[in-house]
């Protein structure tokens, strides 16, 4: 079967979404994974974006943004940011979200704000400018706080998978265990990290992410080498089933511009 790693990641992420759920998608990869699920196996997945764009499916290619014309052409409702992010997501009402990560750590914390050359703020005890300034949390913070569960998608590279992120833009399990309870988060936290190499899940007690399964084209050793913490591996670790022809067909009908096919 001919597919890219990005395509596999999108399909595996899509498999996490169930019919009838209320879901919020971000822009880019996460939106493709979500609309793939809707097309493939979850026709009654109810999707909206953080702009409060409800009920739409993209027209004419991958949307440039969560508010652009490609996602607005057949919407059934346009509301606003507070409605989508605070009322429906931050409140704990939304079933599932998908977010991306520039950097993430073993407790599922996500950094999309900055990468520091030397000590990051939590280590330095002061907030200096990052070497590399990123986009900030956007609406991912609300998804991390409020969605009943959410999925983190990231290209599996050692520099992205850190022992501890430089900056928590969107909280996972923070320092592990029941740390989320300290802040009263209504959401349950990240249920999976889905990468270009495999699927990680949080340990039910420590909340440290371990390898649950890996993709057919890689090995456990390769996954561990590309992870910045000492990755634990499930005793029942499995190989993730390859995309079916049907899945690939449905994904490509969503990804009409082929943005995931670039290798």
């Amino acid at each position, binding site marked *: 079967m001919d597919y890219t790693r990005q395509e596999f990641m999108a399909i595996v992420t899509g498999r996490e979404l169930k019919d009838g759920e209320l879901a919020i998608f971000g822009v880019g990869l996460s939106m493709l994974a979500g609309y793939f699920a809707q097309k493939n196996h979850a026709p009654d997945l109810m999707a909206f974006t953080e702009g409060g764009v409800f009920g739409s499916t993209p027209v004419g290619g991958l949307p440039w943004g969560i508010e652009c014309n490609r996602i607005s052409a057949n919407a059934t409702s346009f509301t606003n940011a507070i409605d989508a992010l605070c009322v429906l997501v931050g409140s704990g009402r939304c079933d599932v979200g998908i977010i991306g990560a520039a950097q993430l750590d073993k407790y599922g914390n996500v950094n999309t704000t900055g990468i520091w050359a030397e000590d990051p703020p939590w280590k330095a005890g002061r*907030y*200096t400018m990052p070497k590399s*300034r990123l986009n900030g949390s956007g*609406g991912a913070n609300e998804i991390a706080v409020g969605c009943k569960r959410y999925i983190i998608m990231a290209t599996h590279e050692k520099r992205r998978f850190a022992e501890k992120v430089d900056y928590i833009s969107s909280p996972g399990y923070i320092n592990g265990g029941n740390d989320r309870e*300290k802040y009263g988060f209504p959401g349950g936290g990240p249920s999976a990290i889905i990468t270009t190499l495999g699927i990680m899940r949080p340990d039910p007690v420590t909340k440290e992410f371990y390898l649950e399964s890996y993709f057919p084209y890689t090995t456990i050793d390769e996954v561990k080498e590309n992870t910045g913490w000492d990755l634990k591996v499930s005793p029942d670790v499995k190989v993730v089933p390859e995309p079916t022809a049907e899945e690939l067909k449905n994904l490509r009908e969503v990804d009409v511009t082929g943005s995931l096919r670039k290798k």
Partner: protein
Amino acid sequence: MRNKLITMKDAVAKYTWDGMTYAHGAALPVGSDSIAFGREMVRQGRKDLNLISNCNSQQSNLLAAVGAVRRIEVGFAGLEVYGFAQGLRRAITSGKTICEDFSNGSIPLRLLGGALNWPFVPATINVGSDEQWCSADNPDEYPAKNKMPEVTDPFTGKTCYAFNVIKPDMAAIHVTMADIYGNAIMLGTEWSRYELSRAAKKVVLQADFIVDTDCIRQFPNLVRIPAEIVDAVVYWPMGVWPQCSVGVYDSDEEHMFAMNKALRTEEGTEEYVEKYVTSYQTREEYLDVIGKDKVDKLNDNPTTFLMDPYRKWILSDDEIKELEGR
């Protein structure tokens, strides 16, 4: 009710000043923002701005690139699929612009709190994250105690947190349609434009179309920004370019990338400003700068049917000129 239609030049001269807290609105980095208004601010040399950007857009990207932004509060600093906002990024990384980070939900909530004249807004988002612990205004304090301080829930005694509220000096808000009094209709997500219109001390609208008030009276439930809170109305077609105005024109993919690339460097920014900011005097010249073919192409997109119910009330350019500045 008073005719509030004025020229872009007059609006920027009258409602903006150096050092002000300026908010732009703003339906996300690719959508409706008052970008033409921002270009005019650059033309008039505004500087030392305290910018309230729910999201960055090409407006904040440009203002930061030319060095006009002292400080920015932002929920998202990028350009979505178009990548990092290179002008803003350069301004932040170089230390020219202080960036106080929040999220896309907390900025509008803080505007709502400003609109309500609340002392603070309960914070259930951003807490436990570095949005709470990192403060660009107080960088020496980590974890910051006063960016989102503790408050005790009087009903349960539990520790909660609070946001401060935002009351910008002025907001320039893009709308799809407005009448000459300032009754405005937005198509596409409002994003935080409702909250912004109520939190700001002054409100200037930048509209794609000026419509007769009969249109407003036919669709009062669409008028989420009423004349009563609006100070001025500016007519500027294609004013969101190179971003999109839902129902009217698409985003200009080519220019989005080119503009962002240009803003990456000082030289590129200078060149961009010369070519696309100081190069026109009138609305007609502005459209020429974009190019007729491009304008036509962008106006032919899958959302244009959303404008159909309102077309019969659109005023012509000549009618608008007649009304401007009265």
